[in-house]
């Protein structure tokens, strides 16, 4: 019998901080698309201990977060896993613990956190100004970003 995995798509960010809200925005749109009945959708504001509570009980988690790199083009979509971890906006910008420390903590305390973790990060332009709208490059590129994220999620889900 095929075991059905519970998969969480977790958007991280602040949706009143311009491009910082790209993760939650994508998750809200993904939730409307009926991609896979086994997907759960959620949004969170920050990482660390908070994230642990969101991901507990799932088999696989796909984080969608914002990222700012030195040379990246706004709208570029990246994929990585914790072992080749790069800092995204919220998995490293946390209230109390960073994401990797939290994972380690969960492991030591045997909290039953999933180990099958994936990160999709979108290069952003602005996250220092309050606003509900994305900046022009991301707004303009949004349909392509969404398609790319859907494609990545489907591939990750099959792994």
């Amino acid at each position, binding site marked *: 019998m095929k075991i059905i995995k519970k998969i969480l798509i977790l958007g991280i960010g602040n949706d009143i901080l311009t491009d*910082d809200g790209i993760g939650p925005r994508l998750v809200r749109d993904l939730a409307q698309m009926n991609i896979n009945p086994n997907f759960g959708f959620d949004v969170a504001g920050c990482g660390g201990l908070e994230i642990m*509570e969101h991901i507990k009980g799932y088999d696989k988690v796909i984080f969608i977060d914002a990222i700012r790199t030195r040379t990246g083009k706004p709208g570029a979509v990246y994929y990585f896993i914790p072992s080749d971890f790069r800092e995204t906006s919220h998995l490293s910008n946390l209230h*109390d613990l960073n994401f990797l420390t939290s994972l380690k903590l969960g492991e030591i305390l045997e909290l039953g956190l999933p180990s099958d973790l994936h990160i999709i990060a979108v290069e952003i332009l602005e996250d220092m100004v*309050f606003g509900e709208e994305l900046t022009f490059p991301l707004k303009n590129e949004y349909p392509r970003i969404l398609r790319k994220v859907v494609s990545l999620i489907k591939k990750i889900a099959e792994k």
Partner: protein
Amino acid sequence: MKRITIDPITRLEGHGKIEIFLNDEGEVNNVYFQVPELRGFEKFCEGRPVEELPAIVAKICGVCPGCHHMASGKAVDAVFGVNPPPTAKKLRELFYMAHFVHSHTAHFYALAAPDFVVGPYAPPTKRNILGVIEKVGKEIGTEVIKQRRLAQEIQALLGGHQTFVVMNIPGGVRRGLSETERDDIADKAKGFVEFAKFTLKIFEDVVLKNKEYVDLILNGPYSLKLHSMGLVDASNKVNFYDGKVRVVDTEGKELCKYSPPEYLDYVAEHVEPWTYLKFPFLKKIGWKGFIEGQNSGVYHATPLSRLNAADGMATPLAQKEYERMYTTLGGKPVHATLAMHWARLVELLYSAERCLELAMDPEITGRELRAQLGPIPGEGVGIVEAQRGTLTHHYWTDEKGIVKKVNIIVGTTNNHAAICMSIKKAAEGFIKKGVEVTDGILNLIEMSFRAYDPCFSCATHCFPGQMPMILEIREPNGELIQRLIRN
């Protein structure tokens, strides 16, 4: 002149930079503490119905969303000229006590304990919560996570969401509490009380029974003689949700006591050209610069200042611990910055006890959840104690309740001058001519402001951050001679 740059700061909410300028003798000349600022919050609020603000402000800080939500809810009540009915008030306070339990727990075990349990000179790879668990055992770590989660569950139940809170509506709250839910919260609160007592026992065993630590707290370069601010009830007991703001001077005498709408008569903000963040001071004394003592206009608003400013705690166990703290530390007021950790744990116990009291209150399951709204006065101030200090929200609206202007004095902002002074004092105490600035010394300097549990996320209207630390030591000509990178 040599220049040391710490940028950004570890285990501190929001990201910031400390620059320590040394003179040619290798001693501290000056210290600047800077934080980047997010822009446009006031503009973002203008033109919106004021009743939207409690939900919006919960998003300006991922660290203390519940505090902003509460201060905002109270300011909105004032804008509409209403007082929530007793049940609604108690439900708000119940939520708020759970918020304090979860926040103070996280601060002690994740941010403060590593310095004491693992040790201030331990390598950064060990000086974190994982190192704490290695020392104290997995069972305690599991309990910390559990109690924090239970407090979050209470907030999620009453607040609609544990982070993006939507509890308060003008004149009341959006939902009540069933008897079953109340019983569940009471059970959790009983656990909080035991957990707070246990945490104080850890503090006693690890810190108070260690002569080196007690000496560091009382005699190290961590003492700062400032006035103390805190919200008090009608009996001058500590209160986080409601009451008047009381300020006592460096000798413990009352300087002033004011209601929320009067805050502008008592507090003003000084501006320095090198930082976006302002420096609140006591108007009665005036801004006299970054000086400590009776003639200074600088105050602090912290767990320790709240205890200094009050005549006691409103719950029995916390009161006992309050008395023990002052007896041990030589009477009121206490000016030892690191004693904030003890004061925070006294508050943890108070929050737990008050949470239980409120859960057992017959009125908590009442059905009258909202007051009738009247004409709109168009201006309102709400003040609560955030974990990090007195939090003030002030809104101005038109006659339809549309926001025209917003002013917020965040908990950490109250402490901006005090934090700068504490860092300088610690730096002066530990950086000496001919002494290599090691990671351990850096951490001892960091401890001076970590005690404040500062959150620059909302102080600068910025989202929380935790980033690596870089220390650079430069020759007077700017040439880099030493660089330390952490994390």
